[in-house]
């Protein structure tokens, strides 16, 4: 099966830092930011996006529609 590659974007204007994505991602893709953004929220950072399985949990459950998972390319075959 081909392994797919994903990019994750978090909209800085929309995220309110509820951290639901951080808690529910099965691949621990997100980490809690230690930097406060312009709006006063700690927006998660998708530091391990390369581990993303494309399950879409974060995009679907985000209460602010701030998270998008985008399939970027197919990177070769795996067993």
């Amino acid at each position, binding site marked *: 099966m081909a392994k797919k590659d994903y990019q994750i974007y978090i909209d800085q204007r929309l995220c309110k830092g509820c951290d*639901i994505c951080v*808690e529910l991602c099965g691949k621990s893709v997100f980490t809690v930011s230690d930097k406060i953004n312009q709006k006063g929220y700690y927006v998660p950072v998708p530091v391990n996006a390369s581990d993303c399985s494309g399950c879409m949990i974060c995009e*679907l459950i985000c209460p602010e*529609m701030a998270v998008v998972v985008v399939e970027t390319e197919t990177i070769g075959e795996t067993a």
Partner: protein
Amino acid sequence: MQHHLLKYLRTELLPTAFCTGCGCGTVLNLFCHAIDELKLDPDDIISVTGIGCSSWIPSPYFAGDTLHTTHGRSIAFATGVKVMKPEKKVVVIAGDGDLSGIGGNHLIHAARRNIDITVLLVNNYVYGMTGGQVSPATPYETSTTTTPYGNPEHPFEIAELVAAAGSVYSARWTTYHIFHLKKAIKEAMNKKGFAFIEIFSQCPTSYGRRVGLREGIDILKEFKKNSVNIKNLKKFTEEELENKIVVGKMIERSRPEFVESLQDVNKKVMEET
């Protein structure tokens, strides 16, 4: 890079007015995903809401025609809309207080008539917007602002009530069950007749804070822990099912639809006179 489904929202009003971690936003998110997957044109949808935080899900955020009505009366208004515009998809999204409290009679009678509307009832256990007063959906013994020593009443099982009243589709999911809920919204939108989904949703501010579940994620974890799929009911005793959330599809069937029946009657009368 922004969300491809923001095209369904009035983006000038974002971020939403919902509290951090509130389930109302997840319902809006899944509603947009369902609309997109069904390839529905927002111009063909009329959303009707009442009063409460959950009533803000389509109005003002969903960029289609919306009717923001008085507390409890969204189904009554939606009935009028559907009778006059049967070609439109009519969706009601409102809270447990709105639809099962003050508007409870509209709910059961619309189900009995089997009028072709889709109703998403966002059950966050309380009157969220006004500060967390007890509602007909508050669990037994739960502390709220108006039941500080515990709720002496028992909640409605709303999805079962609506199924018994005559709806052709009734289901219950939570904002934790995103894939099931998205599928259910699609099924309900496509169903001819009264289609109902009770959605357990987190209100960390007016409910969670009082019961030691301060963050949205804390309530989501409770939903995960306390849900039992209707398919597995037999594995549990009645005692074990106390305080569990039974999720799944309560009913799916077909019955003559109200607006069509009304049109048939009108036609007959016109022909005879």
